[in-house]
């Protein structure tokens, strides 16, 4: 099995606090994995390791078989173009139109002549693809709107569209449905996973909702205080596993 993302006893320390503690994970090139846990359990840190946005204090990270610690900046940039992230804050530029946000994320339109063309008259095929993606997420009409004028839920769906537009080998989504209403959230997750499965890409999604984790994913990884509590298929998860994850939390909840 090809491996998309692998961590080997990775620890990350931020100012004396251990965000991740000896986490070893291996995610296959066509797997869909949910990462669950309370706020501060280390979900976001784990996802940010893959793009080398966070560097491990101990241990090693490999993406598509490349050890991140050993490769040059140039190789890293090439590698990063095969990833897509949906960060919590969306990473959308509010001053750009939605279409421009998508074009900006295109991994192979990076040269100055691409930039010039995309600023003036973007290629119709790309516009069509962008519109199709947005439409399937229910936000097709926002194509030419300023991104800053969208509502929270719309912006989050645009962020998902932006990630899928890259056709990533590894999609890392950090709570991509946090501010979308529940029925819409199911649609968004289903579309995301479906499109990744069809193209044969891996997906790692951090989530709040246990029911979504069980319904859509091949594997569920539970994190608590930076350690892996469980790592198994959702069918084998029982109520006591979830209880172990959230024990001692206030009112069972996270506030995001």
């Amino acid at each position, binding site marked *: 099995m090809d491996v998309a993302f692998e961590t080997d006893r990775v620890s990350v320390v931020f100012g004396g606090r251990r965000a991740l503690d000896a986490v070893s994970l291996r995610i296959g090139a066509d797997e869909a994995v949910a990462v669950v846990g309370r706020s501060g359990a280390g979900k976001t840190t784990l996802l940010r390791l893959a793009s080398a946005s966070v560097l491990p204090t101990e241990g090693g990270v490999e993406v598509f078989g490349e050890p991140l610690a050993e490769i040059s900046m140039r190789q890293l940039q090439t590698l990063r173009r095969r990833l897509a992230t949906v960060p919590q804050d969306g990473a959308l530029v509010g001053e750009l*139109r939605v279409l421009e946000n998508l074009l900006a994320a295109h991994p192979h339109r990076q040269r100055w002549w691409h930039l010039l063309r995309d600023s003036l008259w973007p290629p*119709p095929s790309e*516009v*069509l693809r962008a*519109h199709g993606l947005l439409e399937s997420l229910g936000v*097709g*009409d926002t*194509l*030419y*709107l*300023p991104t800053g004028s969208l509502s929270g839920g719309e912006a989050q769906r645009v962020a998902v569209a932006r990630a899928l537009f890259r056709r990533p080998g590894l999609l890392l989504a950090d709570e991509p449905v946090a501010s979308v209403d529940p029925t819409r959230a199911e649609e968004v997750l289903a579309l995301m996973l479906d499109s990744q499965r069809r193209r044969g890409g891996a997906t790692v999604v951090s989530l709040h909702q246990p029911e979504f984790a069980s319904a859509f994913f091949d594997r569920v990884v539970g994190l608590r205080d930076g350690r892996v509590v469980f790592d198994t298929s959702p069918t084998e998860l029982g109520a006591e596993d979830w209880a172990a994850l959230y024990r001692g939390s206030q009112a069972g909840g996270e506030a995001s």
Partner: protein
Amino acid sequence: MSEAMSPIRRLHRHRPRRPFVRGSATLMLVTVVAVWWGGGLWSAPTPGVARWENLRRFLTELRPYPLQGRDWDLGLAWEWWSERIGPVVVEASLSTLALAVVAVAAAAAGGWLVSVVAARPLGWKDPFLRPSRSRGMRVLTAVPRYATRGGLVLLRGIPVYVWAFLLLGIMGIGAWTAVVALAIHNAGILGRLFAEGIENLPPATAQRARAEGAARSALWVWTLRPQLEARSWIYVFYRFETCVRESTVLGLLGLNSLGWFIQDARAGQRLDEMWAFVLLGSGIIVASDLMSHEIRTRLRRSSQSQSSAASLP
């Protein structure tokens, strides 16, 4: 393909637009092309050969006079410096700086006074709460405001150098002429900035004070002034930097500042001295910029009032 594109075309047609911004940008671009194409920039009264000869001569004459045509000699250079440049360095820089200091203080004082009249909500019948109810009164109270605003445009629309030139004919040569020329142009700018500062304040505090019965003057002293003071100082120091720049050149007209020495050296074809004074002026400007920049950063940090450089005309 084209069928699939049609909803996209519709979206594109109805996208939010800013025709005025777009139109301005296009107009600018057209003007730039027109200026380089047909602005008459390429006509040259002097032939090319003479030009290069000119440039060569200019470059050789920049060297201190006793050193021209021979090797570098520190002793000679020092002699030249202490004879020609050194004696006037202090006078030239001090008079330039002093002009800027007095002028910017006068401009700030004038700007403050005028801004009270020029700011909209202060002129209302019930300041910050509501304008006068009758239309006639509203127009009447607007008259002094528009008059001051127009006056401010007049003051700042004419550059310092032109003001100085005009005042020279009327007031004669003297420090006052330079001070007044610098001060009135900058009063026009600071007056507008202060007035806009009052208008752009979040009105809640002033409204509360007024609702508790504060008089116009009390409103000014206890509510508006404290909120605006830090930012006003930032503006004043910003204008101080430009005043120093301007006051260096006022001497070209014969007034007492660094420019006078530059003009004198130029008239006497002493390019070495002219060059030295130009460098001295640039040193003065850099030094005062650094000082003023330091003060402005501290003020900004202490006041939290974020005013980015772009909001500073």
